[in-house]
């Protein structure tokens, strides 16, 4: 992948400089988020449905429905723009949110809630996390 994965152009658009491997990784992450949203058995499902008010047994159904709707909207926009050379701000925000949701879902599913646990994780998992972080770093830089 190029050193700067996303570049803000003078016309305001964000150029996506991901190679095929980078886009494939993003596609895979977006696909998992989309699947996890509707599949209760998906490894990432719990992370996408974390409590809003842990002091209550059940969260406000309207709030959880709103969360589901917004996550789905973002991931659908991210998937629809996967092949684009340039993103507008709304599309870049959808990418950032979905990549970050994927990153958090990985650590929740693997029980990685501390730096120690992260260091002990399988190399494949660490590499996946580091690659998602690299994409997020670069995207946040231009937002």
């Amino acid at each position, binding site marked *: 992948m190029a050193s700067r994965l996303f570049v803000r152009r003078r016309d305001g658009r964000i150029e996506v400089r991901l190679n095929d491997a980078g886009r494939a990784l993003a596609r895979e992450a977006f696909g998992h988020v989309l699947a996890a949203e509707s599949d209760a058995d998906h490894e990432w499902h719990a992370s996408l449905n*974390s*409590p*809003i*008010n*842990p*002091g209550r047994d059940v969260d*406000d159904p309207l*709030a959880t429905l*709103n*969360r589901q709707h*917004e*996550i789905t909207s*973002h991931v659908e926009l991210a998937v629809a723009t996967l092949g684009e050379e340039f993103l507008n701000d709304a599309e870049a*925000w959808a990418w*950032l*949110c*979905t*990549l*970050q*949701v*994927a*990153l*958090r879902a990985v*650590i929740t599913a693997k029980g*990685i*809630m*501390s*730096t120690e*646990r*992260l260091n002990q994780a399988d190399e494949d998992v660490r590499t996946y*996390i580091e690659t998602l*972080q690299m994409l*997020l*770093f670069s995207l*946040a*830089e231009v*937002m």
Partner: protein
Amino acid sequence: MPSVKPLRVSDETQVASQTTTLTERPWNVVVWDDPVTPMSVVVVVFRKVFGYPNNKATQLMLTVHHQGRAIVWSGPLERAQGYCVKLQVAGLLATIEQDS
């Protein structure tokens, strides 16, 4: 049978005042630290969700990083819930709690 005293105006006022105090306690939106989320992403999310200027967003991000959590917004329940959802949609670990 125990005798039931009629409710006096002063009792009603007291009950009403206690209820008001309970319902008016603000709700805090809390963001929790995790070992992987890039700091710059947290700053971008705070700017975008709350409209905070960069220095305030950075300060809150550093509080999360160093103290493990930060109260990023306080106010009525419905708005706190709405902000919490937006932070979760952006992939942050966020919850709400009533101010003690």
